[in-house]
């Protein structure tokens, strides 16, 4: 793979642009060129998904059909986006009636879904398309003496039958990548549980408690940093640490996996947006051999 189309989604470009920048920088360092997608809509996760199956399928179908025109696979870095695109691709590939209906809608714009391109979540690109050994070869400044807790994101790894990422009950891609970069990964209670993010719209209090339970479990395990692969999870696990109920505890830095890998790959700090992180990641960067990036 040498080129891929980035479907940014709604949230990353506004709330966590550092994740987008770090991902582009890391993939380019590893030989994958990232091209932007324009003229697309939101993937419709949660909202359209809840009220109309055909509209939800058409939204993903259009994004996929546009990628087909470019002849490139889609890179999704958000759990919700990768989940939506994969669930709808699965539907369109297996249900002729749905595909026909969506293609009738797309025909008005001269687009057609045929199922030619794949949807790749970032973790698949790193672990399968690039491969652990290539990542390992590119590490120039490994971490030393730092413990990471991996949080995978529900929609990244489930439902496994459709998304085909890692192992839904015991995911290890983030852990393996971090260890390649010199860190030690720690296990913690409730590793595959949700961050609480999808509950924010309906009940912020419950959402916050779910996220805080995760933080407490990570802290008990002695991790120095939480690594993520979805901006919703990253933002949620960060913001619950600013809630009053946690005001007296030490905040644990939260970083997207690519932002964590970046300095170890010798990428400039400026390109990784480390200065934008709400929880100062300096203790993490100090663990880089030879000092911070």
């Amino acid at each position: 793979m040498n080129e891929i189309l980035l479907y940014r989604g709604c949230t990353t470009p506004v709330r966590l642009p550092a994740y987008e920048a770090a991902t582009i920088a890391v993939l380019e360092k590893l030989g994958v060129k990232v091209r932007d997608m324009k003229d697309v809509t939101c993937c419709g996760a949660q909202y359209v998904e809840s009220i109309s199956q055909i509209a939800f399928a058409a939204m993903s179908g259009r994004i996929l059909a546009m990628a087909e025109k470019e002849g490139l696979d889609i890179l999704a870095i958000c759990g919700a986006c990768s989940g939506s695109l994969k669930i709808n691709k699965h539907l369109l590939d297996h249900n002729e009636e749905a595909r026909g209906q969506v293609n009738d809608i797309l025909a008005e714009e001269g687009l057609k879904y045929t199922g030619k391109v794949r949807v790749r979540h970032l973790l698949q690109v790193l672990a399968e398309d690039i491969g652990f050994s290539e990542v390992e070869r590119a590490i120039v400044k490994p971490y030393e003496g730092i413990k990471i807790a991996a949080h995978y994101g529900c929609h990244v790894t489930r439902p496994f039958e459709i998304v085909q990422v890692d192992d839904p009950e015991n995911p290890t891609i983030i852990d393996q990548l971090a260890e390649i970069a010199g860190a030690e990964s720690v296990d913690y209670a409730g590793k595959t549980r949700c961050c609480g993010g999808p509950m924010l719209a309906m009940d912020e209090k419950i959402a916050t408690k779910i996220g805080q339970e995760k933080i407490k479990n990570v802290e008990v395990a002695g991790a120095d940093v939480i690594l993520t692969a979805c901006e919703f999870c990253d933002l949620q696990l960060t913001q619950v640490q600013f809630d009053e109920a946690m005001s007296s505890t030490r905040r644990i830095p939260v970083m997207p996996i690519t932002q964590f890998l970046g300095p170890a790959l010798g990428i400039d700090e400026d390109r990784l947006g480390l200065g934008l992180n709400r929880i100062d990641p300096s203790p993490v960067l100090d663990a880089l051999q030879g000092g911070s990036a």
Partner: protein
Amino acid sequence: MGESVHTPTSSFAEELAAIPGGEAVNKCIQCGICTASCAVARYSDEYRPRQLIQKILLGEREEVLKSELPWLCMTCRLCEERCQEGVSPAEVFHAVRILAAREGHVPLAFRQVMAALMRDGWILGDSYTDFEEEDREDLGLETDLGWNNEFLHRLKQYLPLEEDE
């Protein structure tokens, strides 16, 4: 003993079974592994996925469709990964939501996001200000996000939304 096995089902369960994703509801054996796995159930006083499925099986149509409970599922699918009977509460509750939406029962939070989506083609149009644009510029990222705000209008006939939204 000796009596026939009680298999609860209802016309409501059959109605949901006709919506793709809802068909598995009749396979539920009410073991409760979904509630035991559920992060929301842990912190909510009311949300219990097993109980909600039981209400469907018993045919409590109006109560379920008018309730906000089916909208509390985070679709994290941890219960689905563990259910040995092949039931996905996330899919079942999506089917409930679709039916509820057809009858005009969509929670305010969902209606608000849908309004933004219909207007802008994405959900954070209101939050993308000069401030965020500057951050993107500093990071060397594209500042013109180029969202399509027309396609959603072609889908209007499939989206049961109030006109004033």
